[in-house]
């Protein structure tokens, strides 16, 4: 009996037997340390093997390692770029152009997917039978078809279903839809337009300030001044006034046929359009489910308590449901943002020059596969970790304080 109690770690009672002797391997702490040593050892061994093997093989084939190739002339062109780029530029610059193309499609995609996903997610909870069913069909169709297939589908739709530039669709005068993409009139950039953009930014800042002021006035008097109407007025008025002050430039570059293609105006390429459509619609289906789950996770009693106080539906959503739902929505939403960003590398399949596509061509031309893949990995890692860091910050900003209930 005494043996029994001491083996359970009870404080040694007076006159009880000493703890039973056992192998030190049975000690929980010793085992814990041992497992960690074994794991680290295995990781280091595999890593060393891979590096050693690579270096040996590279040496055997006389391939020089290093990032020197980044300064050499790339010699190949890409179909579109955010920055100035010509084949005479370096590999470093073509990779940068690729990265910017990746960021462009990812950022626009994340914004659109969040908007569409939120609307579909809420629509799926609607009491309206048709709206709810349509949303369900959308979600099931989109998330059950592989993304790569969807990209081919959109690309084919644009390439096959749309006419040649000569017979381009022109829904509005000067706006052309063809299998070379979408072309539309664009203002000839002058000071007035720059001022107009500054006006937009100013309007945003002033509206933000008005909103803070409204909250303060509500605290003092109970009445919340309307911000929506002055806000809309600012967003329209300020850019127009500044544009007029800047000389009211009216010159517009309208696209027109020249030979076999268009000249002038601004354009969206079929590759970019297909990739953006595919990524956005696919990811929106997942985001819709996340939003729906988040709203459903808030107990129905919360809605009842809020409406019992006399709160209107919109305020119930804004003050009670959304703040609680967001805590559930944000972590999986972050994963979807990362997925969208990384899935943008499927661009290579339809010829959009993103980071992977440009790096791939660079690897083919230089043979610097290890360095090229290392650059791709490091870049995606940096972008992904940045998104994660931002979303984690946002999550902790809205996190539930004071424990759960």
């Amino acid at each position, binding site marked *: 009996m005494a043996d029994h109690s001491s083996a359970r770690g009870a404080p040694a009672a007076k006159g009880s037997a000493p703890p039973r002797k056992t192998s030190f391997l049975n000690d929980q702490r010793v085992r814990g340390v041992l497992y960690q040593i074994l794991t680290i050892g295995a990781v280091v061994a595999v890593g060393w093997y891979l590096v050693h093997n690579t270096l040996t093989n590279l040496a055997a084939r006389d391939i020089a390692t290093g990032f020197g190739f980044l300064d050499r002339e790339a010699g190949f062109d890409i179909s579109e770029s955010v920055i100035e780029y010509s084949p005479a530029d370096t590999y470093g610059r073509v990779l940068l152009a690729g990265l910017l193309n990746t960021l462009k499609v990812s950022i626009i995609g994340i914004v659109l997917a969040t908007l569409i996903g939120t609307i579909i997610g809420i629509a799926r909870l609607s009491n309206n039978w048709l709206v709810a069913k349509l949303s369900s069909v959308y979600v099931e169709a989109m998330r059950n078809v592989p993304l790569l297939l969807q990209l081919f589908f959109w690309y084919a739709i644009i390439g096959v279903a749309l006419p040649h530039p000569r017979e381009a669709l022109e829904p509005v005068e000067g706006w052309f839809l063809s299998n070379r993409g979408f072309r539309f009139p664009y203002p000839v950039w002058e000071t007035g337009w720059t001022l107009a953009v500054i006006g937009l930014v100013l309007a945003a800042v002033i509206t933000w300030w008005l909103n803070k002021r409204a909250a303060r006035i*509500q*605290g*003092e*008097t*109970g*009445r*919340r001044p309307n911000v929506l109407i002055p806000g809309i007025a600012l967003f329209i008025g300020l850019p127009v006034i500044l544009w007029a002050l800047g000389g009211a430039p009216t010159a517009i570059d309208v696209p027109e046929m020249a030979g076999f293609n268009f000249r002038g105006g601004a354009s969206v390429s079929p590759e970019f359009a297909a990739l953006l459509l595919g990524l956005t619609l696919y990811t929106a289906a997942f985001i819709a489910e996340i939003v729906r789950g988040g709203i459903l996770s808030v*107990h129905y*009693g*919360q809605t*009842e*308590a*809020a*409406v*019992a*106080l*006399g*709160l*209107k539906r919109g*305020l119930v959503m804004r*003050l*009670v449901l959304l*703040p*609680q739902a967001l*805590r559930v929505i944000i972590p999986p939403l972050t994963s979807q943002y990362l997925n969208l960003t990384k899935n943008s590398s499927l661009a290579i399949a339809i010829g959009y020059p993103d980071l992977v596509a440009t790096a791939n061509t660079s690897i083919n031309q230089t043979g610097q596969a290890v360095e090229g893949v290392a650059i791709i990995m490091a870049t995606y890692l940096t972008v992904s970790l940045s998104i994660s860091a931002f979303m984690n910050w946002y999550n902790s900003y809205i996190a*539930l*304080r*004071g*424990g*759960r*209930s």
Partner: protein
Amino acid sequence: MSNGIEPTQTTVEPSVDAPKTPAMGEEVVIRLDNVNKWFGHFHVLKDINLDVRRGERVVVCGPSGSGKSTVIRCINRLEEHQQGDIIVNGVTLTNDVKAIEAIRKDVGMVFQSFNLFPHLTVLENLILGPIWVNKTPRKEAVDTAMYYLERVKIPEQASKYPGQLSGGQQQRVAIARSLCMKPSIMLFDEPTSALDPEMIKEVLDVMVELAQEGMTMICVTHEMGFARSVADTVVFMADGQIVEKNSPKELFANPQEERTRQFLSQIIQH
């Protein structure tokens, strides 16, 4: 027991001896006129007729599934009735959103499961309604909130979150949250059923005080001690119908219906 009544609850008596001070007025503030309601095919309320006068304290009791919660949930339109009229403070409940909001503003409700907002502090829970519904200036709302927190005896918890409070404290905050809207009628939907026995008393004490001040109250509860000491009227419901309605003295001492006798004998045996 088969009725889902906790035997321990009937033994808890509110500590405050309740002299039924303020006499109720003549004015009818809630009228239910032949109210019928179905959940799908289930006929949950059958021809409910009930008048509640200003200052009247009504206790609704009965076995679970008898429709007693549904009755009071219809009064502030958390549930929709399909037949008959419900008139609150002279306003008939229809689909008119404005009328529903006006009634909800004036009718406080306390739930079995508290339903405090977990992302807001106790104080923020209390001032949410006054600020966004009654358009009260924040300072005034905070003053009112602190007054009612004093009344329910937990002013020191104002800056805590609901998750940090005990069940009894949470329910007292929930009562204070309703009172901050300065309602003229209070509905209680089994306010002590989710509480440990030792917390029931602290919540009942608050309710007894409220009753003594002349608040119009409808309370669904199994607390027969509470019914006996403060109620003007006890309504006994079974199977979606009002079986019997009388003063607590009469109803407990001299039930007219067999169904009532059965129910009372079952909860008094323990």
